[in-house]
């Protein structure tokens, strides 16, 4: 049976609404709950849903026109149904409505004189109050039980993404529990690893400095940068440390070197590759601070700190994300060799997007490195040493390495740095990842 669609009450103070856009044309099929139009209320533009199914037979209020609450704005019915009666009553109702409909609560029986007695069932469905039950228009209130709200806040679950299973779409405890289960496959809040996407480097290709895009700095970013600089100097550092179980990475390195004795892959080469892979997952860290913008790099150009007799220099492995471990190993060896001979060209030791400093070979367990501006971070790698650890309730020996990341807080916030470091750890502890995808 054909029904009138009336201007719904989409905000508590709304008295009339303007049709911003019809999302359906006359003749389009409409199912119940489907977005029908966008309505400008006194507060925002809201989606209005169809409360009955059928075909949009007639649009009574055009885009850009306004109608008071409760006034018929369209008719939905069967394709061949006679809607002349409804049309008549709708047009008759339009002018008479204005005074009676307001923000005040009007009993249903008073609110529906526009609709003929023929449609008693639809009348109550299309009263203006309907969309406020939370399932309704986007931006409508979503009911959440108190414990569910609290759990979501504590676990960082975005309520906007949770489908409530309680009455009226109320989000309840079990919905949050389900969302939490989905959200964490392994450790708490560890960022989900996307599949390894390693574009193959062209054989013989030579890579210059990484391409980048500059994004305007948000007001918040600018304020964070300004405030931290006054406190900590031009590059405000903070430090994050994690402990990594290296047994698998060490095994893998050994196996590669058994297969390809000439490759001479070092642990540091593995770390370079893992950093590059992790940077692809966290582009916010592969960035630099540029006065008014933040620069995001497309590739991971990894600076490797090399100690020479004359001091420290950081030759750059360009596009490490594109290169295989064996390629990286060869390149690092060659660059380091020339670094010691002071034969590096400036473009070979400038413009990295991220650096690694490794003092493991000097038996240093853990240290903090100074960021090489304008890079956003540097990773300080300590020595890998066998240590007793507890696994599954048993004390056992594992190769443990500590890594400390220094971050430029103007670009990288604590949580962002921590998530990068978690990914780095996750890949390094499961290096097979490098060969998937």
């Amino acid at each position, binding site marked *: 049976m054909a029904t009138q669609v009336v201007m719904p009450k989409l905000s508590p103070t709304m008295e009339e609404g303007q049709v911003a856009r019809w999302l359906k044309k006359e003749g389009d099929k409409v199912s119940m709950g489907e977005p029908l139009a966008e309505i400008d209320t006194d507060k925002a533009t809201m989606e209005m849903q169809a409360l009955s199914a059928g075909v949009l037979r007639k649009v009574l209020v055009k885009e850009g026109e306004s109608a008071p609450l409760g006034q018929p704005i369209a008719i939905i019915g069967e394709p061949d149904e006679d809607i002349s009666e409804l049309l008549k009553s709708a047009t008759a109702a339009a002018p008479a409505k204005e005074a009676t409909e307001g923000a005040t609560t009007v009993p249903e029986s008073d609110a529906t004189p526009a609709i003929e007695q023929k449609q008693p069932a639809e009348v109550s469905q299309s009263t203006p109050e309907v969309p406020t039950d939370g399932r309704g228009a986007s931006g409508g209130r979503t009911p959440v*039980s*108190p*414990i*569910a*709200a*609290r759990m979501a806040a504590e676990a960082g679950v975005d309520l906007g993404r949770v489908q409530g*299973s*309680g*009455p009226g779409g109320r989000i*309840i*405890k*079990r919905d949050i529990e389900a969302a939490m289960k989905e959200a964490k496959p392994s450790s708490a809040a560890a960022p989900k690893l996307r599949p390894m996407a390693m574009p193959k480097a062209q054989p013989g290709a030579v890579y210059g400095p990484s391409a980048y895009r500059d994004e305007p700095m948000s007001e918040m970013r600018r304020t964070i940068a300004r405030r931290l600089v006054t406190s900590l100097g031009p590059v405000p550092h903070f430090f994050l440390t994690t402990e990594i179980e290296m047994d698998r990475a060490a095994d893998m390195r050994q196996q590669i070197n058994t297969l390809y004795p000439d490759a001479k892959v070092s642990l540091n080469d593995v770390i370079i590759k893992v950093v590059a892979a992790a940077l692809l997952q966290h582009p916010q860290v592969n960035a630099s601070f540029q006065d008014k913008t933040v620069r995001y790099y497309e590739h991971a150009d990894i600076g490797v700190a090399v100690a020479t007799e004359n001091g420290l220099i950081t030759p750059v492995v360009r596009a490490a994300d594109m290169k295989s471990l064996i390629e990286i190993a060869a390149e690092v060896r060659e660059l380091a060799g020339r670094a010691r001979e002071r034969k590096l060209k400036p473009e070979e030791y400038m413009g990295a997007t991220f650096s690694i400093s490794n003092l493991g070979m000097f038996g240093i367990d853990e240290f903090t490195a100074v960021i090489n501006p304008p890079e956003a971070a540097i990773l300080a790698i300590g020595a890998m040493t066998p240590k007793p650890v507890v696994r599954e309730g048993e004390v056992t020996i594992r190769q443990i390495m500590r890594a400390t990341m220094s971050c430029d807080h103007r670009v990288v916030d604590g949580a962002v740095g921590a998530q990068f470091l978690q990914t780095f750890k996750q890949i390094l502890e499961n290096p097979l990842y490098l060969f998937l995808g």
Partner: protein
Amino acid sequence: MRDALNDALREELARDPDVFLMGEEVAEYQGAYKVTRGLLEEFGAKRVIDTPITELGFAGLGVGAAMAGLRPIIEFMTFNFSILATDQIINSAAKMLYMSGGQFKIPIVFRGPGGSAYQVSSQHSQALESWYAYFPGLKVVMPSTPADAKGLLKSAIRDDDPVIFIEQERMYGMKGEVPEEDDFTIPLGVADVKREGTDATIIARSLLVPAALKAAEELQKEGINCEVIDPRTIRPLDIETIIESVKKTNRVVIAEESHPFCGVGGEISAEIHEQAFDYLDAPVKRVSAADVPMPYAKNLEKLAIPDVPQIVAAVKEVAYV
């Protein structure tokens, strides 16, 4: 239950010569419900006293005796008749300590059956606990097992404040273990977790405790694990135990034999919302008596009193099953 109450009275009469018992038919007839059986014979007419049908009068006598230093136990044949004595209970007993600036404590117990019986109609089937719990100065106790009845009545008699001790007429025949220790008492103001559970908390008192336990059993078959809490003392209310449980289960059903409006269930619900709002997963649900005078007709009477299926349905509602 009857014997547990009888034991409590006997032990306290024997323990303290200041304790005496007064009410309609408590002596010669040995109690309308035989709770006072044998007490006249054992303690004599000075300690176990029959009164005329004058509730206001003997309640007032009791308050006076308490002011003079005795520890009266006043039996109402049922609490429906205590309505006649409310001036003495509310205006005298409840307020004397306060209005005398602490000079007169009133260690009195008003006891008797309350709630519904079987087809005694509107005037004789009332659950009046919310009346008495409303007034500062009164304590209100409602046992749901023979052991609780004995332990709580002994504590009530020893308490220095006026205590309204409401038994349940339908529960006098209830059987249950009572600890045999010499001086078994249960402190007032301490709730009892009758059944531990994790999914929902049913708060019930008096007649509704066995119903709540039965409902919990049925729900267990469907995998819903209910905790059942009996506050035992309505005032002072052991809200801590309830809040602890709510924090664990996040869902609450309150089952009570009294009317819903302005009832004890409403009060408990308000306290839960005030103290544990952030732990709730659903609005607190009450299962109360029908909001009508108790019908005489057997079928209607049954419908007016909350039963196991109603509690089961309410738990499913708050657990979203």
